[in-house]
């Protein structure tokens, strides 16, 4: 059976990873294992949520992005900026200052990611009103949620709204605008500044569309550092001539925050953020326990994009700041140029229906799957149920599944080893070798340089 290739922006740096298993335990799809003292990923299960990135104590997980100099390959260099980027900067550093600094860094133009949200609201409301489609309609805004549903809740994929994200609309708009000025596509580079890994994956490897027209992506924390450095070295924003103001209205400014989408949907809608909350709710929805809800806005991160893994500022302060900005928008100053592209955008708004992603737990064949599951249940009789991860898997259940799938051996369980040693069925040297095979050779020797130990930094 051929294994489909899955692109992930998050990468584990083997030489930095200390094999501590923090990531293994937080992964919502149990996609990580410790082998040979390092964390390893089952790529078919990963949904790019970034929980592993958050908990890694040594920054061994990185979010792959484009080299900044790539922008200079293009004559016209456009920064596509989601509102959450502008929310990172403290009061006084306003969007017009950030735009000015970005242009100083090499971009020739800026476009905000949520400008495209105007049309989206209209189309989502049409879908919500259409009683022939599955309800509740689930927003496709958060790519990590879309992938979570594809992998863990395949029966709910028909509920996902098959529409592009605001940033795609903004990208299509800006590209067309340059075409209309007689500029060739190859001269226009659109670079998205991303608050998370999932957005990158959505751009590089979309679930259902072929090309989003975005040429590259740059991590939000990287841009934040670059912008802050310029502001500090010029002696503050007072020395930076402001560029144009933000072009977002209140609703667009708040779009990426919790409740931002649901606010403009007609009907009964719920906004749910945070991985565990989203999973709990999807379980209930899948059990048919949820009735008469029209629209679901689901975001993988707590406080939605303000909690994005690449967002450096405190998420609660960002939310407060963006709410304040949204209240103070001067609507008369906004430019609605994007509206003149309404028909073109509408014609390109939809994606194919979202399909489940196969991540087989046991087997395609039901009788083989039952046999394997029964085997797992028998193995569980021997495992202690402590979920300590010493075997390298997140839980006893995951370990039993790995054993049945031939990816591990039952005796990797340290408690079983103790029992076998006690019964003189296992040599203690052999037992140590087995544990070293999982956690790395010489891992258990005295080492005062390791993290948290006496001479950590020396």
């Amino acid at each position, binding site marked *: 059976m051929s294994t489909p290739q899955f692109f992930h922006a998050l990468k584990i740096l083997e030489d930095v990873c200390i094999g501590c298993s923090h990531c293994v335990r937080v992964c919502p799809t149990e996609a990580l294992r410790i082998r040979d003292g390092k964390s390893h990923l089952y790529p078919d299960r990963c949904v790019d949520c970034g929980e592993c990135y958050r908990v890694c104590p040594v920054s061994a997980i990185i979010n792959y992005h484009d080299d900044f100099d790539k922008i200079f390959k293009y004559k016209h260099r456009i920064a596509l900026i989601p509102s959450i980027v502008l929310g990172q900067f403290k009061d006084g550093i306003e969007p017009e200052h950030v735009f000015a600094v970005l242009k100083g860094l090499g971009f020739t133009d800026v476009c905000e990611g949520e400008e495209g949200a105007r049309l989206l609201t209209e189309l989502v409301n049409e879908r919500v009103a259409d009683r022939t489609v599955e309800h509740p309609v689930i927003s496709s805004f958060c790519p990590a949620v879309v992938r979570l549903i594809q992998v863990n809740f*395949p029966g709910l994929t028909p509920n996902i709204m098959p529409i592009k994200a605001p940033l795609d609309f903004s990208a299509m708009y800006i590209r067309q605008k340059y075409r209309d000025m007689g500029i060739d596509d190859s001269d226009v580079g659109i670079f998205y500044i991303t608050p998370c890994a999932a957005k990158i994956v959505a751009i590089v490897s979309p679930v259902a569309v072929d090309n989003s027209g975005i040429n590259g992506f740059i991590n939000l924390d990287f841009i934040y550092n670059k912008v802050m450095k310029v502001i500090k070295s010029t002696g503050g924003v007072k020395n930076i001539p402001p560029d144009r103001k933000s072009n977002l209205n209140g609703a667009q400014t708040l779009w990426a925050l919790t409740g931002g989408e649901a606010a403009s949907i007609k009907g009964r809608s719920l906004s749910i953020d945070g991985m565990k909350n989203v999973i709990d709710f999807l379980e209930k929805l899948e059990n048919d326990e949820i009735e008469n809800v029209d629209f679901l806005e689901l975001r993988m991160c707590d406080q939605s994009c303000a909690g994005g893994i690449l967002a450096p500022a405190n998420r609660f302060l960002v939310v407060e700041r963006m709410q304040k900005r949204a209240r103070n928008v001067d609507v008369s100053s906004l430019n609605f140029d994007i509206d003149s592209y309404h028909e073109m955008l509408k014609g390109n708004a939809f994606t194919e229906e979202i399909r489940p992603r196969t991540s087989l737990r046991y087997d395609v064949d*039901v009788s083989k799957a*039952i046999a394997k599951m029964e085997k797992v249940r028998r193995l569980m009789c021997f495992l202690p149920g402590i979920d300590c991860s010493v075997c390298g898997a997140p839980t006893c259940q995951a370990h039993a599944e790995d054993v049945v799938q031939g990816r591990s051996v039952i005796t990797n369980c340290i408690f079983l080893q103790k029992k076998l040693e006690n019964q003189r069925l296992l040599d203690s040297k052999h037992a140590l070798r087995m544990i070293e095979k999982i956690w790395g050779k010489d891992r258990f020797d005295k080492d005062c340089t390791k993290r948290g130990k006496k001479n950590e930094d020396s």
Partner: protein
Amino acid sequence: MKLDYNVEGGDFARAGWASSQVKKVLKQLNVDQGVIKRVVVALYEAEVNIVAHAYRGTITVNIDAEKIRMTLEDEGPGIPDIPLAMQRGYSTASPQVREMGFGAGMGLPNIDSNADNFDIKTNIGVGTTLEITINLKPQQE
């Protein structure tokens, strides 16, 4: 493969737990999504019936490559008139139960329409046993 669950009468907070567990198993077994949905709906209704009407009950689920057979056996008042109970909208649920959003009289008819085979045996004053069978291979329309 056999799975067993206990159900307590009156424990609405936990109603749906067994059907949720069975759903997880069927998902892992790669059973067709439409079939899973029918199993979940039928089992959930039957589970809620025990919670709403009986004192306690057990659920036994047998899964093989062909079908899933769910047997729900309760200690409870029994059903005096099964044909009447099978009518849509007919309910003997107490006002308190209805207030919680249950007892719309759709339970048994809903089970019947989702099952490939549905059997009720009842003994007044003793209890009721339901046997629900659903084929795992989706039917050809």
